[in-house]
């Protein structure tokens, strides 16, 4: 990719995704380790490795695009969503994993469609692996919504919070027309697609939890 109009914005977007994945990986280890079942906890650790690997791939890609040496990844660059940094329990973890993975899927597929030749080597495998994480989080969303007592309500509360932040983030990207104009992203209306996907999964409870 050449250094053209919109390049700094694209770098910021790629680093934001990498930061989100870095923080998610960290939270999957810290919080996912205490998952409600042994299987859920072991799967969370496996996904943490995946998310941290994706973050590293994206950091390396942005360094390469800028012609900089590959940096030793020890922390995020400060662009991760605030809700992710604050994840402190299983409900927040699943709500964040679910919503942020949908947003990442929309964004990375849009990059792949816009620049298939340049982006394919770096992110196609990542997008495929991410789909598996989406299956896990979607299944857990359904499970928590069908749970008993206060869990569905508390989960919807956690989902509403992270959903609001993801919606704002995607709206901001939708409004950054340069990314589409210079063909870094193929699609617009990411916010709408995101909410459509979430509402589809949540069913009737989807509209009630939407704060965007």
């Amino acid at each position, binding site marked *: 990719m050449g250094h053209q109009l919109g390049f700094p914005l694209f770098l910021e977007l790629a680093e934001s995704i990498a930061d989100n994945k870095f923080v998610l990986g960290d939270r999957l280890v810290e919080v996912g380790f205490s998952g409600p079942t042994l*299987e859920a906890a*072991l*799967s969370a650790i496996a996904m943490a490795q995946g998310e941290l690997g994706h973050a590293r791939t994206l950091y390396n890609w942005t360094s390469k695009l800028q012609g900089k040496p590959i940096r030793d990844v020890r922390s995020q660059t400060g662009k991760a969503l605030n809700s992710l940094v604050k994840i402190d329990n299983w409900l927040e973890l699943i709500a964040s994993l679910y919503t942020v993975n949908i947003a990442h899927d929309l964004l990375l597929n849009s990059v792949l469609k816009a620049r298939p030749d340049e982006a394919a080597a770096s992110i196609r495998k990542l997008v495929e692996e991410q789909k598996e994480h989406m*299956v896990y989080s979607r*299944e857990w969303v359904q*499970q928590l919504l069908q749970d008993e007592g206060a869990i569905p309500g508390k989960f919807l509360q956690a989902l509403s919070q992270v959903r609001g932040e993801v919606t704002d983030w995607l709206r901001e990207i939708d409004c950054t027309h340069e990314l589409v104009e210079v063909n870094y992203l193929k699609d617009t209306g990411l916010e709408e697609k995101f909410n459509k996907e979430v509402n589809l999964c949540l069913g009737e409870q989807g509209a009630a939890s939407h704060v965007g």
Partner: protein
Amino acid sequence: MEYDVFARIDRGERLMCIGSVTAPTDNLARFYAKHVYDEENWVELCVVARQHICWERLPKGLYEKEEVGV
């Protein structure tokens, strides 16, 4: 729901029952099996809901008896 996990380590090898997972759905059971039993690069891996196994013969009462008074 309980699922038994079956795997084949290489082409031509026998299909083995390598363990079990508990999951609410088939998708999650497959996901759990893949990540819990990842000690080998299995050529085949599948899960079967235990309730769907058609047993022809089972030891009757063996385990129930052992659990009495536990």
